[in-house]
């Protein structure tokens, strides 16, 4: 009986072990599927950091220009763009260590993407079809996504053993029933905060450059 029971137990243990293995493989596959393949090994650390910094700086500049264009096209005052709106991600980079702060940048960038898409859609509806803001936003989304890829690679270098939590591109939480003013205010707030975020991202990457991140990682790597 014991044996039988024991055998039963053995069988259940074996089946559990198999199940865990299969589950781990499935999770890994799922993660791989969800998490886009980031090819960070094609470039050296310095190249990566240089390109990332340039891209972030370019996007920061472009966002400023886009915001100006936005304000000009919407006849908006600066005050409206600075007002509080809970559903829009904050631009504040948090964290104690550089890795945490870079991770914060990464997370915020990911959070901004759905809001940017929403603003772009709203702008397309508001001023079709040749809306420079919508067009700029479309490019901006691509570039922000590219910045996120770069920052992800930096994170891989900064903390190679810690998996990077991937924030889902969840809905914005902004109700659809916004009036035009609310939509314009929303778009301006998103762009303003994005610009602030990118500015901070530039600063963070500069500090990485100054902190000779690549030299350390090269040493570690070697």
């Amino acid at each position, binding site marked *: 009986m014991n044996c039988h029971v024991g055998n039963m137990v053995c069988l259940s243990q074996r089946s559990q072990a198999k199940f865990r293995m299969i589950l781990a493989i499935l999770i890994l596959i799922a993660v791989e599927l969800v998490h*886009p*393949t*980031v*090819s*960070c090994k*094609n*470039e050296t650390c310095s*190249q990566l950091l240089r*390109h*990332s910094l*340039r*891209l972030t*700086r*370019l996007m920061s*500049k472009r966002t400023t220009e886009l915001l100006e264009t936005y304000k000009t096209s919407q006849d908006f005052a600066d005050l409206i763009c600075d007002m509080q709106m809970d559903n829009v991600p904050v631009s504040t980079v948090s964290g104690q260590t550089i890795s945490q702060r870079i991770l914060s940048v990464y997370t915020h960038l990911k959070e901004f993407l759905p809001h940017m898409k929403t603003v772009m859609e709203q702008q397309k509806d508001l001023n079709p079809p040749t809306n420079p803001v919508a067009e700029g936003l*479309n*490019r901006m989304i*691509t*570039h922000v*996504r*590219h910045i996120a*890829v*770069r920052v*992800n*690679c930096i994170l891989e270098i900064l903390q190679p053993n810690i998996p990077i939590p991937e924030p889902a591109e969840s809905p914005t939480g902004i109700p659809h029933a916004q009036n035009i003013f609310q939509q314009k205010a929303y778009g301006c707030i998103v762009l303003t905060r994005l610009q602030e975020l990118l500015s901070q991202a530039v600063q963070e990457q500069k500090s990485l450059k100054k902190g000779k991140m690549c030299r350390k990682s090269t040493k570690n790597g070697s």
Partner: protein
Amino acid sequence: MGSSHHLLVFLMFLHYAVGFTYNCVKILPDSSSSIVVEVGKNFTATCHLLEGCAYTSDDIEWRLGNLSIAKQSYHRINETAVSVTINISSDMSDWLKCTAPKESLSYKPRSIYGIFLRAGYPPLKPKNLSCIAVQEDKDISPNLSCSWDPGSRNPLIDTTYTVYANVPGTVLTHKADCKQHLARFCVVNLETFPIHMVLKVWVEVKNALGSERSELQSDSSYFAKPNPPLNVQVLTEDKFPTSLVVTWKHPIDRTILKLSYAIRYRKVTSNVWIEVPESFTRGYIESFRLQSLEPYTQYVVQMRCIGESNSSYWSNWSPSVTERTTEAKPASAPDLWRIIRPTSNSRNVTLIWKAPVKANGKIRFYNLSINQNNEKFESHNITADNLSQMYSMELPAGKMASIEITAYNSAGESPKATLSIPRSDKELPGVKDMSWSVRDEKLQVKWTAVLPLPHPLKLSEYLLEWVKIPQSVHQKELPAGWQRVPKNVTVTTLNAGLEKFKRYNISVYPIYKYQPGHVWHFQPGRPVTRPAYVQQGPPKEGPTVTVTKSKKNSAELTWEETPLDSHQGFIIHYTIFYAIGNTKQWKSETVGPNVHSYVLTDLASETDYVVYVMASTEAGSVKGTDCTFKTMKYGDGEVEVIVVVVCLSFLFLTVFIIMICLRKREVIKKLLWPQVPDPSDSSIAHWSPDFPIKADLPKEDVSVVEVDVFDGKSLCEEDKGVLPLKKDKYLSEEHSSGIGGSSCMSSPRHSVSDSDEGDSGQTTSSTVQYSTVLGSGYKGQTPSHQPPAFARSESTQPLLDCEEHPDHLNESQSRSSYFRRGRELEPGVLAPECDGGSLTFCPVQEEEPSPVAEEPPASALCYMPQKSGYRPQ
């Protein structure tokens, strides 16, 4: 019911009549569409007989298209299956059929099954994939143009090319299907160009036989091609004549693509670009100073850019910008030279010069200073003008001159050029053995170096001068060109644009230098000159020939030398062509180039000739104008000889005649002037008693009677007409003549012979006695009342013509007739003719009696008839 039965029967009949497509074979592999097979590979198909089929495997036959496949390729698997293996070639796209033939006289239908084979190749891997995204406005275009080499092999089957682009780390992949056959170019739209990202691009080629892929992955900037630098400008600076400042604007923001620049420049007159080293322009700059340029020179500048560290494609070159550097003072001296033409008691010196090679600006004027015998003679400021850079002066043969010239531009003066002209008798030696040749359509001049000269003279250089012959009439042109070569060179090529077919005098001068003080003096030596052509051609025109002397068998030709300008080369010889008239059978004679006259010999006399002269250079010949002449009939002196011979002959004949006459003068005298008996000595007076003999009759030896002819005609002339009519009678009268039978004054009827035949037995060769008849009077005497007197002559001369024609005498009876001696001396009258037609007298023998003597004369009135006869002497 009945009708439906009939319809069924009809359908059955129709079914068998048309044939039933019953099929009991099938091929594996099978496909509803074509089966693609690879060329060069073996393909095996199996034909199966379906269950219930009446055939066996032996009945199966394979066909490809309409051709049967050899049985050797069959493989019988079992009773119901036969396979076939074929090697696929590129032209085997056709039906592969398996048939079970219908047996003869069998009602079994024919079974057939086919599959369509399509032969093809698997795709080749695309090679040399490259993609480019050009700059648009201030960004990089999202359109990525990719190109590759698809290979030359035609896959024969449908093959697709697809380009993919992806930013690693992102899920979005862009792709573009390339529609064209064997595509080698395609554009993929990335929507947004991924700046500062890695970009992965690959092209995938697929067909039914496989797929291939070529990949390219690099930083996105490597795919970008920026625009050329914007607003490129070239600026000059007054104080820096050897530099230019180039400024430009970045074509794209540095946050997108940080650029480095390349600058190239060249002189306007040159096609060779000079590129500024990239290390000089590597930084992210917007200006650059080009240095070490030449003053007052136009430069063309272009720019292009590339991503930092060559991280992108090069942009195109910017449009050219041209700018000239500012002036600097001339860095070299003018090139001074002279041309000396000796005159009667002086020398005409023409100073010519060229602007400094390194003028470094526009030469405004020249300062020319001339010293004669070390004393300042004259100084001039001559405005710079390319057309009048010369100055003429007279320099006595016994004086030396020293010339200095300086060029000026807006920045300053040039170094000084000096030249010395020695006295005529102080010339320095020249080079030896100068020669020239043509190489690559240029003149190459060669000479022997001069021997070292005693101190302080030193050889400085050589100068080669060329002067076009004949000299140009354009006075604004420099009369000569010249070129200086270093002293260690003895062979050089003239870098002058010498004209073809023009003669040039090439001279080589050694230039000596000496330093009497602080300044070097330069003095040319004696020149050695040779004529030369850079290229010879046939003469422009041929010489015009003239015939100066034409003789019986020769002619002297002369031709003028054509103008030197029309020679177009060295005349190597003249050829004289000549032919008779239009025979075109030309003969030729060749003479040297210095010969301008020639004597053609062996010509036919009195013949028209055509002649022309052809001038020849080594490059060809040209004929001159034709000249026609005619040779003489007689040669030199022939006419003179003939004239002399004729004259001499005539003279000789005359002399001969004269000699004859002199020698036979007595005979001639007797013939011309027959001896007329002197009437005074006649004895007639003795036998004519009726008329006294006048004692005062002239004793002139005249045997004629002067007759006064009224009509001016002689008796003889009048007698000619009537003479033939009276011939017979005449003869009879002659025979009846009493005084020799031939005297006009003798009466035939009353001749002496009538009465005295024996007394007249003389012929004309013997002495004939003549009688003078004084018929109608003599010298004014009127013997009308006097009886006719007969005088007998003792002359032996032949009878006068008139004497032979008594008729004339009859006619003249009515006139005063005289016989003159002169008239009777005419030779024609003198010729004795004995034939009947003669008008002259003919001596007859007086002794012969005339048978018609008794007949009375028709009209014999010239003298009185002799009635009583005469007495024999």
